[in-house]
């Protein structure tokens, strides 16, 4: 019985895959699977960063805006070579994360209002730089390769997704900082009393999340021929849904990358399924909203079960 509760989402995923593959013959084709992998690699990478922040009992509502700002930095600096532009994306991402982390961990301001505020600030800066216009996103040929090539038959974007997931998974589950993060998320006072510098751990969460947004921005610009600041802002709710759907608790201290991976697969299957079944865009949005609410109710149900 216990294993049934623990693996609810895995069971839902398997059922979903069975239903979708009956409903649409294309669902399990390799072509479609690789498409899905390309389409949702950015979601998956962002979800890893968000998972880390949520385990630390926080949330980053500016993640999509950091993504946008990093993408703008990346595109602007591509004329100086791909190394410079990638480094710039990562640096911008880390700097944005540092600002969030400083305000939340050191000033101790409410994380929701802080990240909603920085969301507006980062979007504003990105809009000022681009004047709100579309940008050709990959003048530098290296990015075409990143966005479109395959290694061993699997898209490069997919490899990146797996790499980020494995690294962040190991960081969370096996490193000392990772274990401390769980302690801080579960009970920050107890963690502080046992000698953990909780402010530093929380600060690091936001910096790592910013860095991961920077990495995701490189993949975003290499996947799409054109981007707008608005393109990136759609990611926020999707990413939160994926993390919560997987079962990482919003109350902090519980969860992990494995769960987020399952959340990602469920989210991707539902979205891809809706697209294959030609469901209109507006209804897809509505379904996404309902999934988020269901995921939150599931999170609450889990929390009560844990409390006994």
């Amino acid at each position, binding site marked *: 019985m216990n294993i049934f509760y623990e693996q609810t989402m895995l069971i839902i995923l398997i059922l979903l895959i069975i239903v979708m593959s009956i409903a649409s013959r294309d669902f399990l084709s390799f072509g479609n699977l690789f498409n899905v992998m390309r389409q949702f690699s950015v979601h998956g990478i962002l979800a890893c960063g968000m998972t880390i922040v949520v385990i630390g009992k926080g949330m980053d509502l500016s993640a999509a805006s950091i993504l946008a700002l990093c993408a703008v930095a990346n595109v602007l600096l591509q004329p100086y070579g791909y190394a410079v532009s990638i480094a710039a994306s990562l640096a911008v991402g880390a700097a944005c994360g540092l600002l969030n982390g400083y*305000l939340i961990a050191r000033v101790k301001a*409410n994380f929701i209002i802080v990240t*909603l505020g920085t969301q507006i*600030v980062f979007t504003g800066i990105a*809009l000022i730089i681009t004047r709100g216009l579309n940008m050709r996103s990959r003048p530098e040929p290296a990015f075409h390769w990143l966005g479109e090539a395959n290694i061993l038959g699997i898209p490069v974007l997919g490899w990146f997704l797996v790499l980020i997931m494995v690294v962040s998974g190991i960081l969370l589950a096996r490193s000392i900082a990772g274990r401390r993060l769980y302690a801080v998320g579960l009970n920050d006072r107890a963690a502080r009393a046992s000698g953990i510098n909780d402010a530093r751990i929380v600060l690091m969460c936001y910096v790592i999340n910013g860095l991961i947004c920077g990495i995701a921005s490189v993949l975003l610009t290499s996947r799409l021929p054109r981007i707008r600041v608005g393109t990136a802002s759609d990611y926020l709710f999707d990413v939160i849904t994926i993390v919560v759907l997987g079962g990482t608790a919003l109350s902090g201290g519980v969860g992990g990358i494995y769960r987020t991976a399952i959340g990602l697969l469920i989210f991707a299957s539902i979205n891809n399924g809706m697209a294959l079944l030609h469901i209109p865009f507006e209804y897809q*949005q509505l379904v996404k909203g309902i999934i988020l609410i269901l995921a*939150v109710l599931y999170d609450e149900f889990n929390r009560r079960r844990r409390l006994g």
Partner: protein
Amino acid sequence: MKRNVARLIADRKLLIIIVVLLVILSVADRNFFTPRTFVRLLDHISINGVMAAGMTILLISGSFDLSIGSVMAVTGIIIVLTQQFGMLASVLLGLAAGTAVGALNGVLVVKGKINAFIVTLGSMIIFRGLGLAITNSHPVKGRIAAFQVFSQASPLGIPLPVFYLVAVYAVVWYVLRYTKLGRNDFAIGGNTVSSRLAGIRVDLYTFLYFVACSFMAALAGVILTSRVNTGSAVFGDQTPMLVIAAAVLGGTSLFGGKGTIIGTIQGVLILGLIEKAMVIFNVDTNYQILLRGMIIIAVIVTDTLTARRREGAVAATG
């Protein structure tokens, strides 16, 4: 003496900011300092002002609501789409639909025991999605031109929205100061557990505060829709942040238990004057967005630091 002056300045800092902004604007624009401009300014801030009054009630009780922008949008869409049943019916239906969102939020927070932030974030997405779905992502135009009277008639030369604004603030001021509903608001926000032990029906009242907040947002939706005679699902996507910022700027604490409606209207006025200044100084729209975000961050940081200093002072004396 020196301390008295310092306290006087601290107590009146919002008024001082307002006066400074007025002076700057009057110097920058010769035609600014006229009664007409003030009336137009009040007319302009009426939508955010009405919502900020509702948000203040909710913030004092220690909760908050991110869905008010969606409530405003959905109210407008319902009004426009139901105008075939008559104008009055459509307005009532719109108000009812908007208020129902607050009831749903309240039930989920009180009975479901889910974090207010998550509940209202979810309902913000769902109802915006619902709005997009029923309008096919296009703005819908109203058929009854007379509906625009609600916002455009101006008896005594003062537009109706200004009357709404004054009425709402008068009612909320009275409720917060002289009624059980208002006193319980401060009690629950100050300390939920002791309020419950003292016999206050915390769940019922919290539910009512959510309903009140959504009702005000729906009212703002009526004003907005009547002004443009159009409903759209994209209206009000930055509104929740600005409204929360206005209330917090006015001295309402995000941590609950503290706040005044007089402070809130001053906060709304300051944000309105800043918007006005950005227009007068011809600030690019994108810079306006940046500035708005920076104001929100500055306000929250100040609020946090003040709360911490107060805590420190209490710890030192107690």
